[in-house]
């Protein structure tokens, strides 16, 4: 606790934003927080890498992401899904990166980038079926909510262990280079993951072999209850790139245009054989870690409110207003549209049978079931037939 108090004191002294790093030091100057959208919504056209049409489109994606996250938390509170983990406040980081790479590029998610799966074509109803673990679940009820995979969109499978996806992304990008394909892998992880061995291992392997990978860190300030300052003594995450001999950048993760532009730069570098980029997106986890968490137990309301005022959706809205592309009336219409889309997806998803068929329990362990799985399926069928309570939770 003493360490936490020290951090709070340091922040007050330096007047930096709560949840950010404790004041501008040498490394914050060397890795400046790059932004594109100014407070008044203006932007230097030379820095903007998205077309007007794309900017409006991404705005609608951000609204969809927000609506979905809010609605799914409600469903969890109502007991209709068991768990949810979303990206409220981090939409610009997720969508700015996924929109900044090419469609053929592979995505190695952590567990908050559901908007990335949807952006790559996963139907909303399929996503909700995954949350329900029902007969429409593409993962056959094998994983808990929010652990989707969408191979058609090169969105690989989500797991819960931290940072394991980082070396995997490096491997896929490496494989593409071996085959001579123009494919850059994008992987997401939180700042907490930078403490995990696989972050280090992945960055090191990628650096040594100049692998075309973009390592996007969603620095959202908190790993469940542990603040960013208790994850690393480094002033920034981006500076860690120096030790791996790779390129590092630090952007305002709540500024969609800044995230997009930085991702484009990283992709160009990767495709040109200049190796990986560690891209730190400074953002904030406005809500709890997941529906299983209550952040009031470990952080103050002031900090959260300060970040709510920096909402990435409002930020992009100001840009769109400055460009006279979208006004309040259009925003209202977009909101109504995404609300309806999510409502309909939930309705359609809930119409599926509540469980996948019994045999799916054994599907996909191996390419073909071994004798053990075949015998155990028969054993389970017989058990269910002799006592139906076998198939009910109580």
């Amino acid at each position: 606790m003493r360490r936490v108090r020290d951090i709070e004191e340091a922040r007050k002294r330096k007047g930096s934003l709560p949840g950010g790093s404790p004041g501008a030091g040498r490394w914050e100057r060397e890795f400046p927080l790059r932004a594109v959208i100014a407070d008044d919504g203006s932007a230097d056209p030379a820095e903007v890498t998205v077309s007007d049409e794309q900017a409006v489109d991404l705005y609608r994606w951000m609204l969809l992401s927000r609506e979905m996250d809010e609605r799914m938390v409600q469903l969890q509170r109502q007991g209709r899904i068991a768990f949810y983990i979303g990206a409220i406040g981090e939409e610009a980081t997720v969508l700015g990166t996924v929109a900044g790479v090419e469609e053929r590029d592979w995505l190695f998610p952590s567990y908050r980038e559901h908007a990335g799966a949807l952006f790559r074509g996963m139907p909303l109803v399929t996503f909700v079926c995954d949350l329900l673990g029902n007969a429409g679940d593409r993962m056959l009820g094998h994983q808990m909510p929010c652990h989707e995979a969408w191979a058609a969109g090169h969105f690989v499978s989500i797991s819960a262990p931290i940072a394991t996806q980082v070396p995997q992304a490096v491997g896929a990008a490496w494989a593409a280079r071996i085959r001579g394909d123009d494919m850059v892998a994008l992987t997401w992880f939180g700042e907490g993951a930078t403490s995990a061995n696989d972050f280090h291992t992945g960055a090191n392997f990628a650096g040594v072999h100049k692998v075309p990978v973009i390592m996007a860190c969603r620095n959202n300030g908190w790993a469940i209850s542990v603040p960013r300052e208790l994850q690393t003594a480094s002033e920034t995450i981006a500076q860690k790139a120096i030790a791996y001999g790779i390129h590092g950048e630090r952007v305002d993760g709540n500024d969609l245009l800044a995230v997009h532009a930085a991702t484009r730069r990283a992709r160009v570098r990767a495709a040109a054989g200049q190796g990986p980029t560690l891209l730190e997106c400074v953002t904030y986890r406005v809500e709890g870690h997941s529906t299983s968490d209550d952040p009031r137990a470990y952080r103050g309301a002031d900090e959260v409110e300060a970040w709510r005022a920096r909402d990435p959706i409002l930020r992009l809205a100001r840009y769109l207003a400055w460009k006279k592309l979208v006004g309040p009336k259009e925003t209202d219409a977009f909101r109504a549209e995404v609300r309806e889309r999510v409502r309909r997806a939930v309705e359609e998803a809930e119409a599926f049978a509540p469980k996948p068929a019994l045999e799916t329990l054994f599907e996909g362990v191996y390419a073909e079931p071994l004798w053990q799985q075949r015998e155990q399926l028969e054993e389970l069928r017989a058990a269910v037939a002799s006592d139906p309570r076998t198939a009910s939770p109580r």
Partner: protein
Amino acid sequence: MPTMNIIQAVNDALKLEMRRDRDVVVLGEDVGKFGGVFRASQGLQEEFGKDRVIDTPLAESGVIGTALGMALYGLKPVPEIQFADFIFPAMDQILSEVAKYRYRSGGQYACPMVIRTPYGGGIRGGHYHSQSPEAHFIHTAGLKVVVPSNPFDAKGLLTSAIRDPDPVLFFEPKRVYRAAKGEVPEGEVVVPIGKAKVTREGRHVTVIAWGAMWHEADQAAKEAAAMGIEAELLDLRSLQPLDIDAITESVRKTGRAVIVHEAPRTCGFGAEISALVQERCFLHLEAPVTRVTGFDTPFPYTLESEYLPRAPRILKAIREVVAF
């Protein structure tokens, strides 16, 4: 027909599969320019280049993690873990990721790979160059586990493992890496995964072994024969999938089973085999199913001969089981 040892057989299988399939890549610590500390990948980088025979940084989770990404993308990686004792830093990648990838993605993705690693004691290697960690992997659904005992099987099983659609742990018995020699055909050799081999027929007792301990069991069976005991010896070769039919067929004939492995006894794979035998051969059994194994200690240095379930201990068990 050329005579090879296990190292040469492994090298030959890798070479042939790399020639046959451009997607096969080898990666690991010291596997490239040097050809591996046991020389299993000798000459491969010269023939196939640095893109397909990769010297990685020294981190096992990185070797397996990157191999997984390569496999997802469509390559067929054959990562080497220098000693099975050093596989533990990669356990998260193997158990949480590699083993579950097909299942957790609802069959959308798969990550077939062959993780080659020398295992086992008797080489004066102490704790960290001697262990037999096969049970950890058999206990994790989604992985296959293969252990050859001789050069012919090493070549044939490795070939099958590289062509297999699932991830395979390929444990190589380093104690007999060079000592086990035999005739191995040039060109393609395929030994199917999941088939045990009866290497000695007998009617009094079934001895079940694999890898380096097959050689000890074979010695014990020979000595038993001189005493008039006909032991049937089964080389399992593949632990997962397990050739349950070969085991039950033999034990139903002999009514007795002795299981040999060098890993510690408690929760070793012998415990699983013993349970399967009593479930399936209960009315045929004439004596308790018996295990001859390493002890429940870390692998020792000085007393490794005593620790290993070598022929004298196996022979003693065979005689006791037959006399029961």
